[in-house]
């Protein structure tokens, strides 16, 4: 069918090409589009898959077109004999349509495998960052260089442009304080995916996977957990903020600073945080080197979003969250106020509500208290 009419072949090629171009052209600029690559890895994947899609569209058109063609062309109708020739098979053509797909696949396989190995190579001269997936938020750890302690942050991954970033993906980092390997809430599989920068890589408890990011375009890229990880899998977002190396360095050193306001000097907020509502069971505001059960808040105010990047960091939003987090993002946190996570009898995944479902004898948070806490947190630049 194909070689009899090469003009038709070219027509198909055109159509297939047009279809794929249309695909890219109509695609939304949504910060998550795999067809709008801004990272090396994502670029390479697009370059690989476009030609393959074109081949696929051609094969698809041949088969779908062929199906419609044979159905209509050989339709029983008045004037056409209903006594067709009985063809039982034809070895030659059968061998042909075994071999042609085999050849096509072989051609596809070569660049595929070469890119697999290319992606796997350890990047040279890379910035190392550890990414920790937890139920249902992301923690990012920048190892401390020359004796400096590490920097731990959450929800927003800062990277310098023009450099290779070597991400170590873990479900928990036992080398950091409180990075209890078996702590509840950090023991399931997640998947780290920033579509416009790179393909995804799973975070598998018990092993460390690697992913290389590289982009030359500064900007904010959206990411999301791609592996189903329980109740709030859908809400496990994050963003990647690519900055010029100087801006990145400045950011990193500001993160290394001791928090602007110490807990001791925070007055009532300190009491609320450590005693009344025991926020400090799960968070810290006094050291950006600690990995805690909940996100490290030492420099919360330097972020533009919070709660897995789900909300803009504004005071009113933060107050709502502090008072009743599970009302905004579903979590299994009914027990969380009964004791620090991991203590026996406490089934706690996420952050409790401080206004609802309050255990006996524990205070219910007032709006005023929430405001004090929010003000305090927002002072932590």
């Amino acid at each position, binding site marked *: 069918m194909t070689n009899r009419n090469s003009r038709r072949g070219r027509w198909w090629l055109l159509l297939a090409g047009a279809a794929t171009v249309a695909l890219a052209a109509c695609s939304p600029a949504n910060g998550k589009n*795999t067809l709008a690559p801004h990272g090396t890895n994502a670029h390479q994947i697009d370059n*690989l898959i476009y030609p393959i899609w074109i081949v696929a569209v051609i094969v698809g058109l041949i088969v779908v077109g062929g199906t419609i063609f044979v159905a209509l062309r*050989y339709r029983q109708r008045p004037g056409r004999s209903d006594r*067709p020739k009985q063809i*039982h*098979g034809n070895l030659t053509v059968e061998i042909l349509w075994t071999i042609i797909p085999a050849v096509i696949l072989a051609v*596809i396989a070569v660049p595929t495998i070469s*890119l697999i190995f290319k992606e796997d190579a350890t990047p040279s001269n890379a910035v190392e960052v550890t990414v920790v997936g937890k139920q249902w938020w992301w923690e990012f750890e920048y190892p401390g260089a020359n004796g400096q302690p590490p920097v731990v942050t959450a929800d927003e991954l800062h990277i310098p442009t023009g450099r290779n970033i070597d991400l170590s993906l873990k479900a928990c980092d036992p080398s950091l304080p409180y990075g209890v390997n078996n702590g509840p809430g950090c023991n399931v599989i997640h998947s780290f995916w920033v579509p416009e920068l790179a393909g995804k890589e*799973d975070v598998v408890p018990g092993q460390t996977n690697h992913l290389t990011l590289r982009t030359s375009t500064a900007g904010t890229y959206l990411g999301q957990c791609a592996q189903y990880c329980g109740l709030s899998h*859908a809400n496990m977002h994050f963003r990647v903020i690519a900055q010029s190396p100087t801006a990145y360095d400045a950011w990193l050193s500001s993160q290394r600073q001791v928090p602007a306001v110490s807990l001791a000097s925070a007055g009532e907020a300190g009491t609320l945080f450590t005693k009344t509502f025991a926020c400090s069971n799960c968070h810290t505001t006094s050291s950006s080197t600690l990995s805690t059960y909940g996100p490290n808040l030492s420099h919360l105010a330097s972020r533009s979003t919070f709660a897995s990047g789900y909300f803009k960091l504004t005071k009113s939003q933060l107050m709502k969250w502090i008072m009743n987090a599970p009302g905004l993002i579903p979590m299994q946190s009914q027990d969380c106020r009964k004791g620090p996570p991991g203590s026996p009898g406490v089934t706690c995944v996420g952050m409790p509500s401080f206004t609802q479902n309050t255990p006996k004898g524990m205070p219910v948070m007032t709006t005023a208290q929430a405001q004090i806490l929010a003000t305090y947190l927002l002072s932590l630049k």
Partner: protein
Amino acid sequence: MTTVADAPTQTPVRPPVILRRPKETTGVWSWFTTVDHKKIGIMYGVTALVFFCLGGIEALLIRLQLAGPNGTVLTASQYNQIFTMHGTTMVFLLGMPLSIAFANYFVPLMIGARDVAFPRLNAFGYWMFVTGGVFLYSSFLLGGAPNGGWFGYTPLTSTPLGLGALPGRGPDFWAVGIVMLGIGSTTAAINVIVTTLNMRAPGMTLMRMPVFVWMMLVTAFLTLFAMPIITVALIMVFFDRNFGTSFFLPAKGGDPLLYQNLFWLFGHPEVYILILPGMGIVSEILPVFSRKPLFGYPVVVFSGIAIGFLGWGVWAHHMFTTGLGPVAVSAFSLSTMLIAIPTGVKIFNWLATVYKGSVRLTTAMLFALGFIAQFTIGGLSGVSLAVVPADTQQHDSYFVVSHFHYVLFGGLVFGLFGGLYYWFPKVFGRMLDEKLGKWNFWLMVIGFNLTFFPMMLLGIYGMPRRVYRYDAGLGWGSLNLVATIGSFIIAVSVLLFIINAVVSRKRGVIAGNDPWDGRTIEWSTSSPPPEYNFAEIPEIQARDDLWHTKYTEDDDGVLVPLPSGGVDTPAATRAAAAPTHRIHMPSPSFYPLVAALGILPLAYAAVFHSYSWAFLLVAGGAIILAFGIYAWAIEPATAAEADH
């Protein structure tokens, strides 16, 4: 026993049985005790379609929730249960049983047997399927339905309830329920294999068997070897959750990837378990409505077998992003691409079958043609997934969801609907309405593509799967809305089918033995076939044996009707005639049902073992089960009266 002439009155020594031997072969109760492969086939089919509606309603809920950004139809917790149950239902309670329904009904008829090899085991398999399904669905009322996804990845599902990784007892129900269904499908598989190998009519050599029978044989072997693997995986999940082990709990050294390997070692053969029957049905329909033999029968058969073998070597393509390392990943990428070759052979042979034929576009034929076109689209998106770097973008996105609905719905379900239209006249003696059928088909094609093509784009545009909500501003809203509209069009088309089936069963045109001018011997007996299938076991002389009684080829290979062909040939008359002698069929039995019912309390006891009353369930279930098995073993296959 409608067909048995008056039975002798004297009763020989009876074995000690407690339940009276059931005799009814008609009426409501006969359905509970029947061992007739055709009745069981109908029961499988109806039950599977009921589950299809349940799974479909779940799908509609999913679609309603996702119709626009930040949907509020379902809560997160409900959504997770719904999509898990949707996948589980469609795979285990629709796909497998509906294929088994066709196998049950038609494998014996197509190979010229009176029944399957193990009629009572057959009934038992059916009852396991029903109890397993009921058990799974009862979880909605008893502490939450399964919510770990249809492949229930550990450690999410295997983390003990008390640690709270996943709310509810769903995963317990899931693990136990799938094991129950596994018991049922394993018995069905053994039955299909033994029946096909052992019960063929004289002259029915393997290479004369209809392709559908071949594909069911391959499917049965896949089931036989795949089921034990997932059973072990689920046992370990269950132990982790309930007995303090840590097979898949990394905190104590367990390896979550072991689970993934075991699951997909089952799971990938499973997808071929689902598609091969569909391919078999299509291979039956196309020749009949093209008035041409299947193009390259041996090649189609062997490529089916090749798919069966190759299907075992590709499982890790579901794990490309788990960090297997480049060598393993490359190997599995290659083996996955390899499967496209035998599959492509089938596709092209089917097209060549229709090519230059004399095509009748009946509804069945339309569904078969729809299968070819849509399955190919799904298969090609599968090849895109096999390209590992691309898969790292597409994995766990709606691209995958689109891929597998194209192969599962566009392939399997279209094939099964084709089979329903094709064989309905044989089963019920009346034709399905063709006009409604065409509406059914076209609405389904339109709805199907409206639903699942946008999903391919959504995946490419970055939408992950298994999310109960997405933000506005991501540009996914309109495509999702289209998909939702499409899914309701599918629902309308399914509704049309149900109406068609219900109405036609009563008022449809009388079909006669051979309404389609069929090729294979199931069309030589009456519609519906008598309990004993053939008054006389046919002697098979060729592939497409019935066709040869009606037609021949002239020297140029052109079709020529035989003057005395058709239903008037001696063979056909004999096959469909009233029997001239007594044919004893296996008698109905209570015990398969009893045994299956015995397993049900045991299953509940497994889930609720920590409650003090659970031992009552264990005791009760064990007693019922033991009684069922012993009575079954002692009871003769054929009732005592019929023995002499």
